C-alpha cells in the first residue's frame, strides 16, 4: 500500500513554475530517490510535503489521509520527519536537548505541570532522557550529550539531525542531501547507517541526493526531475542509461 501519494503537484513562485505535475506513489518500506540538477525543484517538493509551502495545485496524502492545508507541525505529528539541505539544528542547545525536544510522543504532561516538579513530569522527563540517550548511542554521540550542538563537526551534525528526525518516531523519513559535503569514506558509512536505521525503525525513506553512489546503492526507485518537470522514472539501472537523464546532467548541446 502506498504510504505517500502525490498527485499532480504544482507550485508557482510568481511566474516561475518550480514544480509541475509531479506524481509519486511511495510504497511502505521502500527507499526512493528524487534526483535532478541544482534548482530542479527537489527541495521544493520536500517543502510541499511538509507543508512549509502550500501547493498551487495538486494533492498529497499520507497513509490515506489528505495532508495538504495542514500546518507543518501537524504533518510532523502524523509521522513525517525530515532533515534539511543546510543543516538546521538548534545550535545553542545541548546535543541531548536537540533530541529530547523532538521526542514529542514520549511525554504528554501539561503546561501546568511545567511549572512544578510533579511526579508525572519527573517520571516522564526521566524516560525522555533515557530514550534520547539510546538514540544518541545509535549515532555515536552519547559521550558528547552535554555539548552544544553548534560545537559539533559537520559530519556529526548531519548524524545528529537524522537522530533528531528519528526521535519523532516517524513512518516516513525525508532526507535532503544527507551526504552533501562528505568524503567517500564518510559517504560509505552514511549509507550503512541509513540502511541500518531503515531496518531498525521500519522506515520508508524519500531521498534527495547528488552523490550517485548513494542514490544507486540505496534506492529501489528513482524519479528524475529537471526544471520542475519529471523527465524519467525507474529503477537505478533504467535511470542510469536513460539519455534524457544524461542530457539533463551533462547538458549535452543542441548539436548532439
Amino acid at each position, binding site marked *: 500500500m502506498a504510504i505517500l501519494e502525490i498527485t499532480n503537484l504544482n507550485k508557482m513562485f510568481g511566474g516561475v513554475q518550480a514544480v509541475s505535475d509531479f506524481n509519486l506513489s511511495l510504497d511502505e518500506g521502500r527507499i526512493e530517490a528524487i534526483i535532478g540538477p541544482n534548482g530542479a525543484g527537489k527541495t521544493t517538493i520536500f517543502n510541499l510535503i511538509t507543508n512549509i509551502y502550500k501547493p498551487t495545485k495538486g494533492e498529497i496524502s499520507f497513509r490515506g489521509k489528505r495532508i495538504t492545508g495542514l500546518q507543518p507541525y501537524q504533518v510532523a505529528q502524523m509521522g513525517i520527519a525530515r532533515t534539511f539541505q543546510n543543516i538546521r539544528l*538548534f545550535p545553542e542547545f545541548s546535543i541531548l536537548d536537540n533530541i529530547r525536544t523532538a521526542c514529542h510522543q514520549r511525554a504528554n504532561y501539561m503546561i501546568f505541570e511545567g511549572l512544578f516538579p510533579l511526579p508525572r513530569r519527573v517520571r516522564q522527563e526521566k524516560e525522555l532522557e533515557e530514550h534520547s540517550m539510546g538514540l544518541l548511542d545509535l549515532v555515536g554521540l552519547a559521550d558528547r550529550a552535554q555539548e552544544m550542538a553548534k560545537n559539533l563537526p559537520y559530519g556529526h551534525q548531519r548524524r545528529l539531525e537524522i537522530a533528531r528526525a528519528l526521535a*519523532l518516531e516517524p513512518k516516513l523519513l525525508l532526507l535532503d542531501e544527507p551526504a552533501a559535503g562528505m568524503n567517500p569514506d564518510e559517504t560509505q558509512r552514511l549509507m550503512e547507517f541509513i540502511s541500518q536505521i531503515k531496518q531498525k525503525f521500519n522506515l520508508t525513506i524519500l531521498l534527495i541526493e547528488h552523490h550517485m553512489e548513494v542514490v544507486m546503492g540505496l534506492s529501489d526507485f528513482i524519479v528524475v526531475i529537471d526544471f520542475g518537470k519529471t523527465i524519467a522514472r525507474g529503477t537505478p539501472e533504467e535511470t542510469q542509461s536513460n539519455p534524457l537523464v544524461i542530457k539533463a546532467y551533462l547538458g549535452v548541446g543542441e548539436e548532439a
Partner: protein
Amino acid sequence: MPVYYQGIIILTCVNLISVLGLSLLTGFTGSFCFGQAGFMAIGAYVAGMMTKFWHIPLPVALLCGAVAGGLVSIPLGYPTLRLKGDYFAIATLGFAEAVRLVIENLEKITGGSRGIPSIPTYNNYPVIVVGTLVLVWLIRNYVSSRHGRNCVAIREDEIAAQAIAVNTFRYKQISFIFNGILAGLSGGLLAHYVGFIQPSMFGIPKSTELIVMVIFGGMHSVTGAVLAAIVLTSLPELLRAAAAWRLVVYGAVVVLIMVFRPEGLLGTWELSISSLRALRSQIASHFYKNERGMLRWRS
C-alpha cells in the same frame, strides 16, 4: 531595616518580576518584546483603581492586574506573534505607546496625564521577596520542562521546531501570556509601592530599561535575568553620590558588557546544585597542592 533599603528591595522585586516574563518571552522564546511597560501600565491601573476607588483587598487587586495583563496578551498576540523578529518588536512598541496614550486621554477614568494619587501603599517587603522567589522558581521549572524546551527550539530555529512537531504559534502565545501576567503583576506592585501612578511612568524608557536587563544578564539564563534586575536596579542607587554621573556609569556598564560579553553576564549558565559543583571543580582544576601541601595556582 531602613525604609530606604526596603524601598530598593521592593523596586528590585518589581523589576525582577517584569524581567522574568521578558526573559521567558524574549530570552527563551526569541520574540523580542519592546512594549513591556504597556503591560505594566495595564496591571498598575487595574490594580491601583480597584484598591483606591472600590477598596478591594490588595491581593485580589494584584491578581486582577496580573490577569488583565495576561488577557490583553491574547488578542494582541494573535496577529502580532506571526510577525518575524523586528516587526514583532515594533508592534509591541506601538502597543505600549497606544496604551499610554489611551490612559492619558481617558481623563474621567484614569485622571489623564495627572495620574492617580494616593493609592493605598504597601511595603511588607519579606512577603514580596518570598513571592518573587517563588515566581523565579516556577519560571525556572517551566524553562527546563518539555514546554520550555519547545520555546527554546522556536528561538533557535522556527522551521526546524515545526519540523519536529512543535506548535510554534501556540508556544509563542503561551510565553506571551505568561509575560503579560508577570508584567501586570509587576505593574500592580509598583502602583502600591509608590502610591501614585501616571502614564509617563510607563513610557519607552521603562520598556528599554527592562529589555536591557534581560540582555545584560544573559538572554538564555533565568539566573542572569535575576542578577541583572538586582544589579541594574540597585546600581543607580549605589551611585547616588555621583549625582548626574550615575546614569553615565550605568550606560557605560551596559556598553562594556555588550562589547566584552555579548551573550550577557551569565550567557546560558543557570544556578543549580549541579552547575555549582561543576563550577567548583573547574576552579579547583586551576589549583594544585605542592609538596609542602600549600595551595598553588596552576599557570
